[in-house]
């Protein structure tokens, strides 16, 4: 299990070198997006006002305050990705996104798109928002402010992580592996407890 530090925007090569179980930290700019952001892109057909080629997107809706006309983070955490499944293949295929940072994983469609185009799902430690907030150096820009707090957040990050590669560009899916393994192990446990 290797450790990587990647700078954004990332390349296809950056992503194809990663395997499930690897650990990644990110530097540079990432984009915070959530449900409403992606409903506008895909249901309303509005192209995002930023170039997402090689981008890493974070599933978040930050808790911020305004100081001297600028947004500063109060608490930035990560939301569950599973709800975002229906949008993610489109983000990868149409807009060139190469990484999603989230928790709890994505479905089959996203995993296929990741394999085909060279993208990865990077699992953050859910609930570790204090750390995440300190790894976000600045909110550089906010697009689609009317969707507050589900705008597009341009965030400058310094060593965001550690993130675990949970779905890689080679068909690997750590959640699936763990689930299958758990089902197998539990057959023995159930038998021992006389539960079958």
């Amino acid at each position, binding site marked *: 299990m290797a450790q990587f530090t990647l700078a954004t925007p990332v390349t296809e090569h950056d992503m194809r070198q990663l395997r499930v179980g690897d650990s990644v930290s990110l530097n540079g700019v990432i984009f915070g997006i959530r449900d409403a952001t992606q409903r506008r892109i895909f249901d309303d057909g509005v192209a995002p006002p930023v170039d997402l080629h090689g981008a890493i997107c974070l599933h978040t809706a930050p808790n911020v305050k305004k100081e001297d006309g600028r947004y500063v983070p109060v608490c930035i955490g990560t939301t569950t990705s599973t709800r975002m499944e229906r949008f993610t293949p489109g983000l990868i295929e149409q807009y060139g996104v190469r990484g999603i940072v989230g928790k709890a994983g994505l479905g089959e469609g996203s995993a296929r798109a990741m394999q085909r185009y060279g993208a990865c799902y990077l699992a953050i*430690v859910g609930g570790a928002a204090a750390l995440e907030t300190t790894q976000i150096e600045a909110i550089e820009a906010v697009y689609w402010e009317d969707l507050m707090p589900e705008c597009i957040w341009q965030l400058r990050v310094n060593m965001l992580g550690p993130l675990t590669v949970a779905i890689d560009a080679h068909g690997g899916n750590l959640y699936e592996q763990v689930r299958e393994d758990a089902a197998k192990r539990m057959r023995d446990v159930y038998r021992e407890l006389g539960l079958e």
Partner: protein
Amino acid sequence: MGQIDYGQVQRTASDLYVRALKLIPPDVTAAIERALEHETKSGARDILQTILKNVRVALDRNLMVCQDTGIPIYKVKIGSNVSVDGTKLEAAIRAGCADACVTHPFRSSICDPLTRQNRPDSTGDHIPVVDFSFAADLDGIEIRMMPKGSGSENMTWMKMLLPADGVKGVKKFVLDCVLRAGGQGCTPSLIGIGVGGTAELAVKLAKEALFRPIGRPHPDERIAALERELLDAINRSGIGPMGLGGDTTSLGVHIETADTHITMNPVAVNSQCWRSERASAHMYADGRIEFGY
């Protein structure tokens, strides 16, 4: 007979909410540290270390541990040496809950269940959940607070099993649920289980079980043995922290029971995430106040 200072109750209710979001109880941190000592998977070790680092960062920088401000729950226990106006007591707690949200300030996670419209101050119809109980040997009032996170609260199940299913049925139901949830609700989790009572009492007991410090077994050895057996079984699944594999899926299993009907066998599971947020305050009849977890 001691008198209640309702202003102090209000301030305490507010303080408890903020404390619960920022300070992880020492028994929870200790349980994560113990898990780290035994964890054999390197990825899982990284996650547990990150969690511990996060707890320290929150403390050092006065930040919330996690972004979810939760659904506020207050459990109030009233002793027999204080006289209480219940309506004033409840109003003070509600006001304190709103104060915390508005003056900290932090995000209100509360919304209307039909329109989904957000409430501005962490209160709403029946929210905060305020629960009263009484204890003859308690000096003053004890308030326990839990800002329950949605990720773990969504991992809740209840079933009316058949009496013939017995304790085996209970075990199977719990393990099936926990396995299905995988890493959802930010594992390593604390699993609260309610057995017996009525349907809603079983769920309430499961939640009550989450208020117990991790590592304190049930005083009834038969129930404590069941807690150990289920914890061991859950951790043998290998689901691990965040569902990414490892020896640490749960930090504890806590069971609370009530007697039930001869033709009923209710069981409920209510999970808690690694944050295991809770805070408590003991307001003595003479006006002293003591904060804890």
